[in-house]
């Protein structure tokens, strides 16, 4: 996992700053990488761990969406269910569906994108031994 790169390699990595990415990772350099590419049991465990963390992030985002947006139809029926038609839910419907839902959904999306990218970064770090 922590194979020490040779000085020559380290110098080359600085000059290309990662553009031809294949140059950065010759076969056998990072053991974890070869575990994955050769599909060993350990390699599968690595992939599973990434999948699990990504799925967790996705499910969290979906749960938030279901809770915040998916519960609205029930909320809208509450006034009528509670006290007949005394209070109209109409202004609330306009505000929630016309305007409010969009920023909420965008914020959930942004949280997820950041989370998923962090998961991938962490995973790459783990595999590359950095």
């Amino acid at each position, binding site marked *: 996992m922590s194979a020490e790169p040779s000085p020559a390699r380290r110098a080359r990595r600085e000059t290309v700053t990662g553009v031809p990415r294949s140059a950065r990772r010759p076969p056998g350099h990072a053991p974890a990488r070869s575990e994955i590419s050769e599909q060993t049991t350990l390699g599968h465990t690595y992939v599973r761990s990434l*999948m699990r963390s990504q799925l967790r992030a996705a499910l969290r985002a979906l749960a938030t969406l279901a809770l915040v947006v998916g519960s609205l139809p029930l909320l809208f029926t509450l006034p009528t269910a509670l006290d007949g038609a005394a209070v109209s839910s109409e202004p609330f419907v306009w505000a929630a569906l016309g305007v409010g839902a969009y920023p909420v959904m965008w914020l959930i999306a942004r949280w997820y994108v950041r989370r998923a990218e962090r998961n991938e970064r962490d995973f790459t770090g783990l595999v590359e031994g950095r």
Partner: protein
Amino acid sequence: MNQTYAVAAVTVVVLATVLIGALGLRISRTTSDFYVASRTVKPGLNAAAISGEYLSAASFLGIAGLVLLQGPDMLWYPVGYTAGYLVLLVLVAAPLRRSGAYTLSDFAEARLESAQARRLASLFVVGIGWLYLLPQLQGAGLTLEILTGAPDWVGGLVVAVVVTGAVAAGGMRSITFVQAFQYWLKLTALLVPAFFLAAAWLGDDAPRARFDAPAVFREHTAVRVDDTVRIDVGAPLTVTVSGRVDSTAYEQRRVTLTEGVHRVEAGTTLSFPQGAHVPRRAATGTDPHPASGREDPQSWSQPLAGGRDGHQLYATYGLILATFLGTMGLPHVAVRFYTSPNGRAARRTTLVVLGLVGAFYLLPPVYGALGRIYAPELALTGAADAAVLVLPDRVVGGLAGELLGALLAGGAFAAFLSTASGLTMSVAGVLSQDVLPSRGVRHFRLATALAMAVPLAVSLVATNVPVADAVGLAFAVSASSFCPLLVLGIWWRRLTPPGAIAGLVAGGGAALTAVMATRAGLAPGGWPHTLMAWPAVWSVPLGFLTMIVVSLATPRRVPAGTPAILARLHLPEDLVGRPPAEDVPAESARVQGGRR
């Protein structure tokens, strides 16, 4: 409405589409360019293109029309269309891009290693694509008819010809530019008139749109009924009639319509006094679109009120499930992800799309509410989809009104063109790979013509369906078929080809059957009708369950390459065995040479 400006605006949009398409043709050189724009489209441009493609006539015209008819509850449509992208983002965006496949059929084959699954997926792609193309063409016909009085098949034909030309000529590269342009055009076309309309509304002492009571004519209004309708009069109503009502002919006579349902024949003109309630179209008998699921006319203007037998609540959740989960399976949406350079870019692109689409959807409700105040008779004539187009003339008036109307007409045409291009592109992609014998760009062009010819032919013979409703059906089928396939394919190791096939048939087939039966008027009234008009609530779980149960029952059929495929779907590109430098040539060769 002055036809000259509107025709000019539509012509400009059509010409701009052709010109930008031609520009793309000049730089569209390789097969990879042609199909996936060489996978080099940057998030900003790609997001605008995706949004431009996604915001169809249902968004541009349909939402305002539905809000006018049925009130703010119909805002679930735009919320659902947007949330669909969020669900797509969190569950499938990056893995779908990393799968390296081009169409949903490619995905099915790569993941399941089964040619049978591929063929079935192709069938659904084409079916959903055609189901979605149909309302675009009909909407175009309606728009041109309202603007210029041209017969209703002209608009559909114009869109079909332009789209077929642009797609066949330039492929994905040119379509990307065209659609990015059309997003900004559509946004501008709704935004600018909205300001003028809002100003005029404020100058009019800001009357409130009422949705909890029948709409009211603000002034003496003459309404010409073009198609025979049955109207439901809530209270005795005195109108001046020229034509035939309840089989009696009148000539400029004042008639008091009693409470109940009356039949107004085509060509009749009704003049309503100021302050009269707008009668509703009766839902029984000749109602041409029973699929709307609002078979109870009383609930039209009472969104969710009382939740009568829970029908309305059920329908709302049916709509939510269909749109939230259906977006990911729309063929034109899925194809777009392959144009991103990598999975990370696909995610970031989707985030930008959510912002662009959300910003756009702030506008249609404004038109819906203003339409309820200023153009209530559209609920009677059944042309509610036209609310967006007629409002500037009605509210602002004069030259400014005509110019704004022309801008909206141009925007509406951009909506038809962009969505239809995307759909044609993806349907043609599947047809050329899986149906037509040989492959290559020339056959792709043949497939394009075929992809457009079928829905065009159907649109000429089928009755008009409200645009947003018809689109809702495509979503329901997609949510019940491709959503289970994509979600389980990406996240579940034990999916087998028999399971996937059974799930596609059970979920998608059930949704399609229910939708078609409702459309054909075969569904009995009451709960069965509601259940069949909004199938997503039961057909999505059915699709998932069938897929899971059959997969578990056939554990030996788990494809041998599953671990490798899942690793490729989820690992960041720079960790996967193949260097990115070889990515493009290898995959374009694959597209050219067909599936392996």
